[in-house]
């Protein structure tokens, strides 16, 4: 890829990682790797994000959080699972509180292996995610039209007033980023 045609904003959530992958995600943003020069920004707000970076695997307690963040992200959205934990559970796979990779909860588009995943690999994953994002964006109008058609059909079928609901942002509650006193820069 010679040109980056889109500067995605990313959101990061730590499932149950050991921090190794998290600090590598942050390392991508800092001077050595500096993806910010391409306009890639780490945002705390799911509604601003295009790419969801998840590190660590899922457990009973963080499933709602991961789902909420995912649902709050506007479409098109891409999920990148970072590290072997997020991919499959990795070294902790047999722990009693680990349910497996992130794909057990939300659809994952790109997997970045490694323990810890290296910043180069993470950047590669995000670039790959950009391709997926472009594909998804191209498909989006058709998808939305289909959903609208479906919705109106359902409404007529049920005999109720036709109500075409916008498909995105279904989570009404926020998971708290707005309340921290420092929202985003």
């Amino acid at each position, binding site marked *: 890829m010679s040109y980056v045609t889109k500067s995605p904003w990313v959101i990061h959530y730590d499932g*149950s990682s050991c921090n190794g992958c*998290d600090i590598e995600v942050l390392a991508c943003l800092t001077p050595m790797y500096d993806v910010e020069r391409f306009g890639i920004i780490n945002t705390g707000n799911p509604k601003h994000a295009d790419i969801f970076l998840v590190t660590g695997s899922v457990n009973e307690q963080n499933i709602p959080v991961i789902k909420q963040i995912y649902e709050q992200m506007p479409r098109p959205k891409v999920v990148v699972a970072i590290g072997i934990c997020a991919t499959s559970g990795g070294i*902790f796979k047999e722990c009693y509180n680990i349910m497996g990779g992130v794909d057990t909860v939300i659809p994952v588009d790109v997997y970045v292996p490694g323990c810890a995943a290296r910043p180069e690999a993470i950047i590669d994953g995000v670039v790959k995610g950009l391709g997926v994002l472009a594909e998804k964006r191209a498909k989006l109008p058709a998808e939305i039209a289909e959903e609208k058609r479906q919705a109106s059909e359902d409404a007529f079928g049920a005999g109720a007033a036709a109500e075409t609901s916008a498909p995105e942002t279904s989570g009404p509650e926020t*998971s708290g980023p707005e309340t921290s006193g420092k929202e985003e820069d």
Partner: protein
Amino acid sequence: MSKRTIIPFGPQHPVLPEPVHLDLVIEDERVVEAIPSIGYIHRGLEKLVEKREYTEMVYVIERVCGICSFGHGWGYCKSVEGNMEIVVPERAEYLRCIWHELSRIHSHLLWLGLLADGFGFESLFMHSWRIRESILDIFEKTTGGRVIFSVCKLGGVRKDISAEGLAEIAGILEGIKGELTELTEVFLEDYSVKNRLVGVGKLSYSDAVELCTVGPMARASGVVQDIRLDGHGAYGKLDFAPVTEEAGDCYARCKVRIREVFQSIAMITQAIAQIPEGDIAVPVKGMPQGEFVARMEQPRGEAYYYSIGNGSKFLQRMRVRTPTNMNIPAMVKTLQGCDLADVPMLILTIDPCISCTER
């Protein structure tokens, strides 16, 4: 009297990369109470001792936390080595000290960056992390990994560092000193930084003792406590004194950590000058039997590693008690009565490592 409101803070929020949840009970802008709830990243890795052989368990324990990964690996090895009465060669002890102190530098720089990010000083954050990369380069060169490097094993270490390598490390550390001094000036002298830190989140000496705080958090309140003083590993042969401050506020905690970075550089330089030739590991034979508690001074404070063996290749029980666990009560204490805008600062200054806490 104003109405009380509860503000949920986290688990996903921009201050920390890790999930922690706090319910902040506020009255106007003042926090009256903070109720932490943890458990978002509990994995239950202690139980893995039943499925992993005691020699393999090192890899799991290293992943208690990716930041002080080496220290955790060492702590576990120390505990099992104590159990099996293994005497580690001197060179290995020195090498362990060098890597452990390098981890401390990297951890503290990471924290300084997050702190700067917390009070909104982005360029300072970037500079701290830039300097930190040179430490990670050392790790990569000497061990092959950047954050998790599995170089510590039972009976010693896996890799040796050549004399040239050691000289290079000393050179790199000497080189970053200048940059660190510049950074220090901003952290400790800058007017706006001081405004955010001085007098914020005071923890008195008696509170620090009563709430069992550990590490830099305790030392910033004047408690002299540093497990390295017991002289384990090669620490007995290095000349150092614990860094303490009296004020107990955020500024003091920042100062303690900055001074510790310089202290660690001095310790590594000493270790490099003294390191003897010799083996880097001894073979491990037999099975662990009996119990042993090892204590380590991690970048965040004292950590405990308890192991009990029953003569089989699986340990009966392994327990890790990590520093953040001990510092959370102090954090809750300092949060009471603070301004809402200072909450990120106060959470950050205990240098929380949630993944350690919950394991």
